[in-house]
């Protein structure tokens, strides 16, 4: 049975990537599906994201990348999440992710990858299955 509590989703960008349009769009979309988005914005470190995951008791982490540094930063985050004992919090990636890198990301423990053109329904279905919590789809605005 799914919990009736809202999904708490932490959205962040790591490193020097500044193209935040995508993650801001996702934040707004998720809000309209009843998600509590904890928005960290750009220029985060792995340590900062992990502290936020703990203090906010986040259900899931979403990272957005528009540069090719994603393997490096994601690996660092996944390793440090493991060390901090929060590796059970699922991590999803969005943005410009190359298909040939997906197996390596999966091997690091990344649970979902949503590149350009990924339908919002795919993200929503993933959020529900990864967190075991229900979205508020009926109340969502059309956009």
């Amino acid at each position, binding site marked *: 049975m799914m919990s009736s*509590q809202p999904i708490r989703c932490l959205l962040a960008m790591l490193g020097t990537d500044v193209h935040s349009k995508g993650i801001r769009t996702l*934040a707004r979309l998720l809000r309209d599906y009843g998600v*509590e988005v*904890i928005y960290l914005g750009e220029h985060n470190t792995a*340590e900062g994201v992990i502290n936020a995951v*703990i203090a906010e*008791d986040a259900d899931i982490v979403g990272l957005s990348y528009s540069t090719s540094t994603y393997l490096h930063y994601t690996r660092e985050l996944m390793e440090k999440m493991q060390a901090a004992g929060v590796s059970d919090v699922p991590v999803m990636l969005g943005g410009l992710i190359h298909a040939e890198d997906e197996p390596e990301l999966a091997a690091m423990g990344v649970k979902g990858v949503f590149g350009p053109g990924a339908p919002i329904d795919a993200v929503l279905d993933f959020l529900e299955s990864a967190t075991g919590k229900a979205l508020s789809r009926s109340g969502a605005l059309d956009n």
Partner: protein
Amino acid sequence: MNARRSNPSVEDWAEKVVAGDWRAAARLITLIEGGDATADPILQKLFAAGRDTPVIGITGPAGAGKSTIVDQLLAHWRASDLTVAVLAVDPSSPITGGAVLGDRMRMGRHNTDPGVFIRSMSARGQLGGLSSAAGDALIVLDAMGFDRIVVETVGTGQNEIDILHYAQATIVVQTPAGGDAVQALKAGLLEIADVFAVNKADLAGADRVVSQLREAVEDRYVLDHDDWRAAIVKVQASANIGITELDGALSAFFDYLAAHPAVQEKRRKARIRAALTNRVAEMLKKPNLVGRTSAFDLAIDSVLNRRADPRSAAANFIAAVR
């Protein structure tokens, strides 16, 4: 339920929170937000062992610079090695209950600091309940043993203002862009402000806002001079100007309270009265209160169908639940 959600016993959980365990505290706040009764016995223990951490409320219109001021206060206090917890309350969509909680981003430079605990909370579009949830979360933060607690909320609705009953000191943020000071009077913010921060003080009109606030503060002080006279501080938060003075005004207020125990007592009682009044109203309306829901719904129906006027319906309801 995944393994991460397996919970310790009441005693262990309370002990962990008191020892400053972030994870135990964060999980407990999640239970509180969800209205989970598992939290109740732990809260009882934590409250009994409360540390009376100074709680500073900060409110004001959206975009006034509340989070940026908090960010600068954090830096100021951390420079003196003071540890701080922040409860950042943001509005949620009344339609979906969803929210984008963005206050934390403005305090991003403190994300890696173990002396700064930041928790975001949304209104969740509930019927009330927000101020109680925030009040309970503040009990958790108090028990953790920080030197300061800040609770940040948009000063728009009664729900948000109610949260400030849990703060010993309240900063009300105004800007030159925020209309004239009559707006502040209308919103009742004058009554709750211990310190006014006039932010974006480099913008035209800042001095006018300051003088209007001063006039309002003085008018009030004339009527009730047995209480603190609200301080007014000009701030440019993004440039870190006026933050030392703002903290100085807070310290002066706390010193005043310490020197005037009668005033402190009066204020504490007024705060507790307001908080308990809220709680009682929330409890009475709560749909899962066994056997009482029907009484409240009946009262609503009786007014809806004009069988009873609101005053009689309320009286009937009280008689029914007594």
